[in-house]
């Protein structure tokens, strides 16, 4: 039986709502941002829900204070605002302070990449992977479907420290129909290939899977990896997985060449002494104000399905020369 697709936030917040009934130490904070499931949390647990208003700086500091008092805190807002509006609060009151004092604060950012399609660049988010992975003790979690997002709930309650969850704002197709991926490993191999491996995160996993199918029909068998834990994936297993490939393609819905997934893979390949060449697929470094479907916008900035196919084909050709 197929799994009905859900919004990541609804799947995740459902887990929080269920857990709040059992665990009186869970507290939910938000910066005036809702969801249908959030209405249940507000109604059923008014003492452990607080809306700070449109005030992300205070959202972070209040969440830190609650965590210092022993609460497991889930803080919820739109992705660019919960990361960039309050970056210093995130750095000082979560990243820095959690090195000295135990705290469990989980930032839920909704609106990864272009997922707020018609809202323009203020609400779209292309920089958060770069910024959040710059904080050494932050776990950065980037699911591709609601099944993975839901599984991250266990990671959040069972692991101390600050975490950032990068959720898509749209309902995405289900990738993990039969079972959730093993979140402890940090990545999941969807497909093994021969020469080239596509390493994608978030929404771009869907593009990668489609591209791999199309390329297979052309006789080019590429591997596909979903890298959903951008800070604490199992490095040894990841290295073993990448080792057979001569070409690695990073796919992210974020700026290209500015410290995101592509930089992370470059560093990884270099440090681990892998010899693979890289192709980076990401948003060309500029803000865009055009309207269109998400696919149309993606094509314009070089990360749409057709652009990916063309880039990977050319990359494959270059590897054989």
């Amino acid at each position: 039986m197929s799994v009905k697709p859900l919004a990541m936030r609804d799947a995740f917040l459902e887990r929080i709502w269920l857990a709040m009934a059992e665990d009186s130490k869970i507290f939910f904070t938000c910066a005036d941002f809702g969801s249908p499931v959030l209405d249940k949390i507000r109604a059923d647990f008014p003492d452990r829900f607080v809306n700070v208003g449109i005030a992300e700086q205070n959202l972070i500091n209040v969440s830190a204070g609650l965590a210092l008092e022993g609460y497991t805190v889930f803080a919820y807002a739109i992705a660019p605002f919960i990361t960039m509006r309050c970056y210093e609060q995130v750095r000082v009151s979560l990243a820095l302070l959690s090195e000295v004092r135990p705290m469990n604060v989980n930032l839920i950012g909704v609106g990864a990449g272009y997922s707020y399609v018609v809202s323009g660049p203020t609400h779209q988010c292309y920089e958060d992977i770069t910024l959040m992975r710059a904080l050494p003790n932050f776990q950065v979690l980037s699911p591709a479907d609601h099944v993975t997002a839901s599984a991250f709930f266990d990671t959040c309650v069972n692991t101390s420290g600050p975490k950032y969850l990068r959720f898509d704002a749209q309902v995405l197709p289900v990738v993990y129909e039969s079972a959730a991926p093993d979140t402890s490993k940090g990545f999941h191999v969807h497909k093994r290939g021969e020469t080239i491996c596509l390493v994608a995160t978030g929404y771009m996993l869907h593009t990668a899977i489609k591209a791999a199918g199309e390329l297979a029909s052309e006789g080019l068998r590429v591997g596909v990896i979903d890298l959903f834990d951008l800070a604490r994936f199992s490095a040894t297993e990841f290295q073993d997985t990448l080792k057979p490939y001569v070409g690695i393609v990073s796919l992210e819905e974020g700026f290209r060449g500015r410290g995101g997934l592509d930089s992370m893979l470059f560093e990884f390949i270099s440090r681990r002494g892998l010899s693979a060449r890289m192709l980076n697929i990401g948003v060309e470094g500029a803000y865009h104000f055009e309207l269109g479907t998400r696919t149309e916008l993606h094509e314009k900035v070089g990360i749409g399905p057709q652009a990916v196919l063309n880039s990977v084909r050319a990359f494959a050709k270059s590897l054989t020369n």
Partner: protein
Amino acid sequence: MRNDLIDLRAKAHWVWRETLAVHRRAPETRLASSLSSIEIFVALYYGGVLRFNPSNPRDEERDRCIISKGHGSICMYPILADLGYFPMEELQHVCEAGSFLGGIPDPVIPGYETVNGSLGHGLGVATGMALGLKRKASDRSVFVVAGDGELHEGANWEAIMFASQHKLDNLHLIVDDNRISMLGYTDDIVSHGALTTRLSAFGWDCIEVDGHDVLAVRDALQQQKAIAEGKPKALIARTLKGHGVPGLENAPLSHIINPKPELIDSLLEKTQ
């Protein structure tokens, strides 16, 4: 010693001398803004206001004291040592390699709760703690010591609105109102006007006091602590930056002026 038997004025004088001595050894520390807050900390820690436990600094039964004006709290070093949070000997090594007592205090120091180097964060974190304590049905309080210059940071005002909205009457903000930030008088930079009026308008219970009258500070804090009527509380302590040091006291650039070692030596000799 019982709190009511401690001579608070003598204690404040001792802290003033020790703070000068620390700065004499470690000129990287910020002296002027530490001298304006001495009586505030002495009233809190020796005046029977705060509940604390030096042998277990994170004791659940403590009142939380957030020292938001990080730079300006070097006077806390002798106080914490005197109270037994760490050996007095440590005061000899401030800013030295291997010491945990830096030019700006960090929460690696026993007795410090939060990160204080970057200004404007203490009050927000404190409101979260105060809300958490309320939800845990704890009767403990949260005290925040902030500078008036620090109140230029907008995040404070998010927290100020939040605290009154949630009736956090277990939250105390003490403003070391020395009216000078790094480059001059705050009234010439961005004036707070009458802080008492502003904070009252935001729904806070406010008292204004001479911040160098340690007994008045203690009485005001005790008075506010005894009341819980659904309002957060602010004590505006009118103080002088560089208090007691000629050339430094109330000088617009006192934050970045280091008095000459000979001046400190002569002050320490004269005021024994």
